[in-house]
């Protein structure tokens, strides 16, 4: 618990002892256990009595035009922010590098950001180090890998046939992703490696901004790309490629974007940070209700947000998939935003996973203290306070177990061995 947070609590208008007692106990026992013990009336009055007045009432939250920016847009557009005494101003950004710079220098208060990018900045990969904070996860699933029509004409339908093609054709194959330390780089590399293709040696990788993926594939700049929706759906809509794998094929229920900020922001504005989590939690719950999905798709399709036809966004947004190569299905693991708080909880094992992949692909030269870094970055206590207020369940264990496309299980228990255990690595 930061010194500043304590001070803020003490200077509150009344009952500082109880407030402090809660804070200290939360810190000592783990917030989830604590919340269950505190009577309901105490919980609600403690938060609602004005002692948690946001230090900063207007927050600028950056986003990149992608389907999963929806929680930020909905929190602002539907007025969930006002319920918690803040005003969210969504700010459309042109690049992840720009998002990073602006969050780091405080021009943005927080952002819809790639999970892996936050950990990359925390570890100082490709730029200066800065202590970062993950306030909550924004979504699971809903990204994908697209291959070009030219690759399809060579008979490629899956990873194995792609491997055969790359082995037999005497030319460079180029694959695009969206940011060196980001999630799409990690999904793409993991998927290629599953089929024996080393992304560092066997193919060329480049970065292309998401809204430009389709145009670049059309002119033959790459053979495949990994990007968030709606851009895989857009490639099919524009008849230039097909979906060879979804990101949920690689890891069903994978974490994707987070609500990210700096550790400094959380220290200086703990109440604002908590209010942001509450507003966005409300938005995530709203979006996940099936009945609201169509109107949300319409809302985010506008020029000021994703700027893509509503029909391109809407299908996959409700799990209705067509791979553009003759297969149609209803995907149970489509883009999820809430699932009773299972999506939004910032699992430590999720954060650690990105570090294991950064190590695997040589972006980290040595093993970090995986657990210590994740505990520092992921704001479990703050999230738990916010979720408790909204009566949203918080998982008992900050680690979860996931099975990947190659059969490997990740449970956060031995990150060093896990990172070193892959046959294909940098």
């Amino acid at each position: 618990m930061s010194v500043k947070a304590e001070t803020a609590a003490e200077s509150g208008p009344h009952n500082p002892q109880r407030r402090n007692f809660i804070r200290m106990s939360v810190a000592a026992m783990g917030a989830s256990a604590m919340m269950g013990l505190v009577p309901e009336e105490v919980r609600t009055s403690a938060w609602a009595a004005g002692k948690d007045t946001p230090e900063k009432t207007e927050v600028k939250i950056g986003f990149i035009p992608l389907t999963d920016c929806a929680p930020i847009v909905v929190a602002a557009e539907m007025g969930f922010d006002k319920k918690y005494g803040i005003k969210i101003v969504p700010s459309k950004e042109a690049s992840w590098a720009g998002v990073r710079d602006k969050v780091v220098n405080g021009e943005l208060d927080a952002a819809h950001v790639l999970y892996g990018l936050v950990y990359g900045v925390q570890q100082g990969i490709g730029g200066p180090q800065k202590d970062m904070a993950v306030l909550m996860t924004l979504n699971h699933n809903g990204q994908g890998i697209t291959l070009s029509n030219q690759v399809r004409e060579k008979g490629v339908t899956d990873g194995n046939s792609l491997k055969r093609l790359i082995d037999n054709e005497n030319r460079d194959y180029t694959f695009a992703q969206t940011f060196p330390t980001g999630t799409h780089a990690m999904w793409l590399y993991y998927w290629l490696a599953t089929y024996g293709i080393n992304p560092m040696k066997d193919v060329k990788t480049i970065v292309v901004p998401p809204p430009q993926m389709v145009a670049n594939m059309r002119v033959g700049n790459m053979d495949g790309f990994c990007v968030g929706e709606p851009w895989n759906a857009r490639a099919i809509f524009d008849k230039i490629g097909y979906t060879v794998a979804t990101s949920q094929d690689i890891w069903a229920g994978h974490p994707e974007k987070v609500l990210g900020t700096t550790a400094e922001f959380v220290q200086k504005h703990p109440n604002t940070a908590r209010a942001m989590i509450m507003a966005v939690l409300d938005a995530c719950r709203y979006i996940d209700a099936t009945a609201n999905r169509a109107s949300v798709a319409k809302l985010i399709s506008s020029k000021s947000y994703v700027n893509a036809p509503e029909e391109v966004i809407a299908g996959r947004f409700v799990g209705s998939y067509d791979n553009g190569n003759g297969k149609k299905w209803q995907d149970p693991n489509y883009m999820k935003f809430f699932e009773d708080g299972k999506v939004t909880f910032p699992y430590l094992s999720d954060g650690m996973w990105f570090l294991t992949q950064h190590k695997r692909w040589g972006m980290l030269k040595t093993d970090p203290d995986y657990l210590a870094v994740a505990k520092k970055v992921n704001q479990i206590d703050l999230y738990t306070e916010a979720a408790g207020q909204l009566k949203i369940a918080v998982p008992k264990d900050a680690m979860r177990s996931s099975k990947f496309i190659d059969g490997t299980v990740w449970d956060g228990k031995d990150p060093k061995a896990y990172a070193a255990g892959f046959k294909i690595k940098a």
Partner: protein
Amino acid sequence: MTYKMWHRCCFLLGVTTEHHYKIKHNIKVMLVDENQERTVPLTQVLSEAGYQVIAYISDMADLNKEVARLNPDVIIIDIDSPSRDTLEHIAVASRDDPRAIVMFTHDGDTEKIRSATRAGVSAYVVGGISNERLKPIMDAALARFDEYRGLRLQLDVANNKLAERKVIEKAKGILMQRRSVTEDEAYQALRKMAMDRNERLGEVARQVVEAAQLLG
């Protein structure tokens, strides 16, 4: 990184200072901006300041190909360009071949520039810049770039030295075993061979190790 340290690194790696200066005065600059008109005054200023502007690239062009083809020393890009991520990847993926990336804004917000510069990686250049203002910013960006490159060189030199020491140890072991000499005698033998042949100790040691491997 002081100038002296840089000089030493160049010396250690056989790069002469004159060569280094020549590079600095023949800096090839690539401009990335979707608005070609906007690049005209910038190009003029850069040329007057003695930089060689090799290309204006539209934001929508294939930056990966263009960077590989033109091999610029410095890339100047609009701070709000979506292509910045592409350059990030090029920078992370090609660490052996770093390029200075300078960014410019059009609103001339000095506070923005100041905080952004503090954030690292890059310097920011204002839109509608005068020659006097551009030069020091370019110099600052290049100094950063040199600092980074210099640190990498230092690291490489250190790694080479470490590797060399390991080979020398190995060669000494081989000589001690085969010729039944003491460690000191083995070292003296290596040193003498190096002096006689006018070669580096590490190089002679490497040859000894290779020869031993060949002879089995």
